[in-house]
Each structure stands twice: as structure tokens, then as C-alpha cells.
């Protein structure tokens, strides 16, 4: 494989939790500074070196009643002030996939040759709002899903029941996804939940939307930010000896409303985006060493096993039962703990998946390290899969 054109030279992330004492700007600066330090291994990188910024935010506009967040943040980190030149910052919104799509845009900006270094951040502060479901339901069709009482949780439940009906997927298999992700999250110092749980904990937790319970879902309120610095590969070695390369990145769409799809147990956007990245990188799923998947609900990880091409449609439940996707399994899923345990600060999630993948590919993921990982895949979806964005990353050993 020849050297891909785009590399990641620095990553940073706040702890994911309810940050009562910190504002959205505070969180972003924290993750941004960590990424800048991380990118300064060989030579210090300065704000002046950055050409463009992308910011993934889904709900901050509604939660904080503040839009026009790009310049607000650029100003705080000195990217829109006198010393640095006044760089553009593009805000990207694609519901839960906002962070992944912001990364996608940053990738394209470098890939096109127009810019040499780009910064991409994702952030969300859900704890600043009470009764967040009204706002998160805006990732669905407001008029024909949310207005009838459809919530992201309820829509996941509709998919789950159908999957159970068509493929005999069991309640226990679904629970195992949450158990596995909590197990992994235990070893992630930045995860929101660092607590191992049992199948019984999941099955005894409160019913949210039949048949899914509290422990089937990512936490309702996660605050946090994540930042990644991308550079033209030819420049990357100036800042780091260990650049992580972006092999491919692709996005895809599907109908906004679930009922407008022909098939309720397959996310066509994921299937399409996966097909595109495998083709662009000229690899098969077999080459992938680990996946950071979008397990907003346990069912979505099962769908990911199938739609990303690791198992046949309908065999996702069996895959977790046979421990195919545990940390020591054939293809570990969500070594970070996933949305379930790491947390789901919506706009930051897609970027946090990249941060985790970079740590894994550098071999710096400590207790949750996937042994010998060379290629990682991130899957970030919006709503019920109306949007999907998938990235393939690799380290120097894969080239």
C-alpha cells in the first residue's frame, strides 16, 4: 500500500461525564490543547500552523440557544484573533453523526490539496438542558415520527423487535453487547461509566421502550469534547514519528423516517458507506483489526456486525454470543466502551471514535489495547441511520 495523503498527527479528548462546572467552550479548549500538545512530539505546533477548522455539534444550538458557534470557539483558542490569521471554522450538523461528518470534511479539505493542516473538534453539553428527549428527537422526522411520540429510543426498539422477529435474536444477546462495552469501558480512564455489569443488571434495569431497557442505551446526558489534528502526510513526519493514516472516509444517506425504508433491519446508509471505504482502501472487512461502532442502542451494534460485512444478515446476535467481538475476539468492537460506556456527547462522539482508534493504532490503549492492531474502522450514524459516516485508519505497519 502506498502512503495515504492524509494523516492524523494529534488527538485530545476530555473525560466524558456530566461536566456541571464547565461550559461548552471550556470543554473544547481542554480537548484542543491536549491535541495540540499531542501533535507537538517533534516540533511544537502553533495556532498559526492551522489552516481551517471543522466543528461537529448536533444539539448545542437548541440546548444553549446559541448558534454561530464556529467563530465563538475560534476566538477562544486564538484562531480568530490578531496573532493567528483569521481562519475559517465550519460547523457541521448531522445529528449523532455530526462529529464523524466534521472529520469527513476535514479529511476532504486536506485530501483536496487546498489546506495543509486542519483541526476537527466535536462537542456537546447535554447536561445544560432538562428533558433532552424533545431535542434529541429532532434527529428523527419531526412531523411524522417525533410528533407521534417517536423518540430515538422508541425507534431503536421498533428495529429491535423486528430483528428479534425475523432472526430470533434474543434479549440476552442484546444484553451481552452492553455487558461487553461496560467491560471495555472499565479500562478507559476517559469513559463516563467505568463499571462492569452483568446480564442480570441489563435485564433488571428499567424499561424505556419495550423491549429495550436503560442499560441498552447510551447515557442520556453526556458532556465532552474531542479534537483531532489532520495534516498532509508529507508534513506529518515533521510533527510526529508515528502518524496515523486515513485510508478512506465515506458518508451515505437513507430516508429520514424509518417507515420510508423497505427494510427495517438493515441500515442501507451503513452498507453503502462501508462498501465505499472498502473499495477506496482496496481491502475486505477481514483486514480490519477493530471497530469503533455506533452503539447508541444495543441493536445498533448488532446491525453494525452485519451491515459492515463481518457476519451475514441475521447472525449478529450469534456473533456476540460466540464472543467474536470481545477485546480478545476475532474482531473487537468498541474497545473504548462505545457510546454505552464511554458516553455519547452527541457531536463529539464521531471524533471520540477517531481518538480511540488513533490510540489503539499507536498501541497506547493500555488495558483495552487490541493486540497488534494495524487497521481500525469507525462507524458513526445519525438518528436511525438516515446518515452514516465511516472511516478506515491505519498505522505505518499496515503500509
Amino acid at each position, binding site marked *: 500500500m502506498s502512503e495515504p495523503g492524509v494523516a492524523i498527527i494529534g488527538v485530545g479528548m476530555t473525560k466524558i461525564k456530566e461536566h456541571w462546572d464547565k461550559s461548552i467552550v471550556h470543554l473544547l479548549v481542554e480537548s484542543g490543547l491536549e491535541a495540540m500538545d499531542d501533535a507537538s512530539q517533534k516540533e511544537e505546533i502553533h495556532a498559526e500552523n492551522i489552516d481551517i477548522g471543522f466543528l461537529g455539534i448536533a444539539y448545542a444550538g437548541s440546548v444553549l440557544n446559541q448558534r454561530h458557534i464556529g467563530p465563538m470557539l475560534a476566538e477562544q483558542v486564538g484562531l480568530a484573533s490578531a496573532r493567528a490569521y483569521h481562519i475559517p471554522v465550519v460547523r457541521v450538523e448531522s445529528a449523532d453523526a455530526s462529529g464523524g461528518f466534521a472529520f469527513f470534511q476535514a479529511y476532504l479539505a486536506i485530501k483536496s490539496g487546498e489546506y495543509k493542516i486542519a483541526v476537527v473538534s466535536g462537542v456537546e453539553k447535554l447536561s445544560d438542558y432538562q428533558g433532552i428527549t424533545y431535542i434529541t428527537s429532532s434527529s428523527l422526522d419531526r*412531523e411524522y415520527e417525533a*410528533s407521534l*411520540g417517536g*423518540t430515538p429510543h422508541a425507534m431503536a426498539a421498533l428495529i429491535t*423487535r423486528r430483528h428479534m422477529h425475523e432472526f430470533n435474536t434474543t434479549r440476552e444477546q442484546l444484553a451481552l453487547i452492553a455487558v461487553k462495552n461496560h467491560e471495555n469501558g472499565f479500562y478507559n480512564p476517559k469513559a463516563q461509566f467505568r463499571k462492569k455489569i452483568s446480564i442480570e443488571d441489563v435485564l433488571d434495569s428499567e*424499561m*424505556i*421502550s419495550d423491549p429495550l431497557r436503560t442499560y441498552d442505551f447510551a447515557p442520556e446526558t453526556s458532556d465532552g469534547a474531542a479534537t483531532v489534528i489532520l495534516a498532509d502526510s508529507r508534513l506529518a513526519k515533521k510533527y510526529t514519528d508515528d502518524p496515523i493514516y486515513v485510508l478512506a472516509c465515506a458518508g451515505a444517506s437513507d430516508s429520514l423516517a424509518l*417507515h420510508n425504508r423497505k427494510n427495517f433491519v438493515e441500515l442501507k446508509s451503513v452498507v453503502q458507506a462501508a462498501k465505499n471505504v472498502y473499495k477506496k482502501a482496496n481491502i475486505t472487512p477481514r483486514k480490519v483489526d477493530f471497530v469503533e461502532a455506533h452503539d447508541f442502542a444495543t441493536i445498533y451494534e448488532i446491525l453494525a456486525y452485519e451491515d459492515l460485512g463481518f457476519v451475514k444478515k441475521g447472525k449478529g446476535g450469534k456473533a456476540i454470543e460466540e464472543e467474536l467481538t470481545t477485546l480478545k475476539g476475532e474482531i473487537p468492537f468498541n474497545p473504548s466502551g462505545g457510546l454505552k460506556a464511554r458516553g455519547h456527547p452527541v457531536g463529539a462522539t464521531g471524533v471520540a471514535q477517531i481518538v480511540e482508534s488513533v490510540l489503539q493504532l499507536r498501541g497506547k490503549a493500555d488495558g483495552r489495547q487490541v493486540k497488534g492492531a494495524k487497521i481500525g474502522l469507525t462507524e458513526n450514524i445519525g438518528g436511525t441511520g438516515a446518515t452514516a459516516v465511516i472511516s478506515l485508519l491505519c498505522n505505518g505497519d499496515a503500509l
Partner: protein
Amino acid sequence: MSSSPARYWRELGARYRLEASKCTICGAVYYPPVTPCLGMCQACRRKSIGKMKTIRLPRRGKIVSYTIVRDMAPPDFKTPYAIALIDLGEKTILGRLTDCNLDELHIGMEVEAVGPRRLGEQGKDKSGIIKYSMMFRPISTEKEVEVKLKKLKD
């Protein structure tokens, strides 16, 4: 924060009468209906402009999947309530279930449209638009009615 009445009003055909659009070229059905004069079929695109016919969806259908929302509902929704993907033959839509025993819901259950029924009022003080929507209820077969009556007598 409340939406303008127009936003609600222009959806009435779909909400109250289950109106949908049918492409007269390929037969595809869309719910809610496409814009009356400029709407297109997603498959036939430009060729279908002006050839989309407004139809009413059948009022009877079968449950494809359902869920009972017990928690994490938006602020103005009283739990529990049930929603379902309902196959109306020509089109599957998302519907709110009503007049039903939540424990008896199942995939394949036959339901019929009823209403429009009251969904709720807009705004925290409930002073805004009162929203209605067609809802769906189980169709009891004669046999089921017989069994229920017998139970009541016993």
C-alpha cells in the same frame, strides 16, 4: 417556543385523512404526500412532475413492529403509549396506537385507523395549537369478541 399554525395546517391531509401521493408512472406511494404541484417521485424524478396523484391510504393494516414507550418520552407525552410500524398494503407508516390492551399487541396484529384523535397541546402552558392525528386500534375478530364477552359473563 411554538411553531406557526401554518406548519401544522399544511400537514392536515396526511394527519387527518391519511393522504399520500402515488406516482402514476411507476406506482410508488409516498406518505406524507409530496408537494402538490412540484412534487416528484423519488425514482422517476423530473419525469413525474405533474403526474403525482393524491390518494388515501387504506384504513386497515397489520403491525410490522411496535414498541411501548414507558420512559424517556418528550415532556408533553404521557407514558405509557404505543407506536407501531403499520403496513397499510400500499405503504408502511408510523402510527400511534389507541384503544388497545398494551399486553396484547403483537407483530401481525390487524389494526384500523380511527380518529383523528387528540395527540396533545403545543406549549408548556398548553395554550398553543391542539394537535390531532389519525391513530390505530386493533380490529377484534368475531371470535375474539365472543371470547371477551364470555369472560365478562363469567
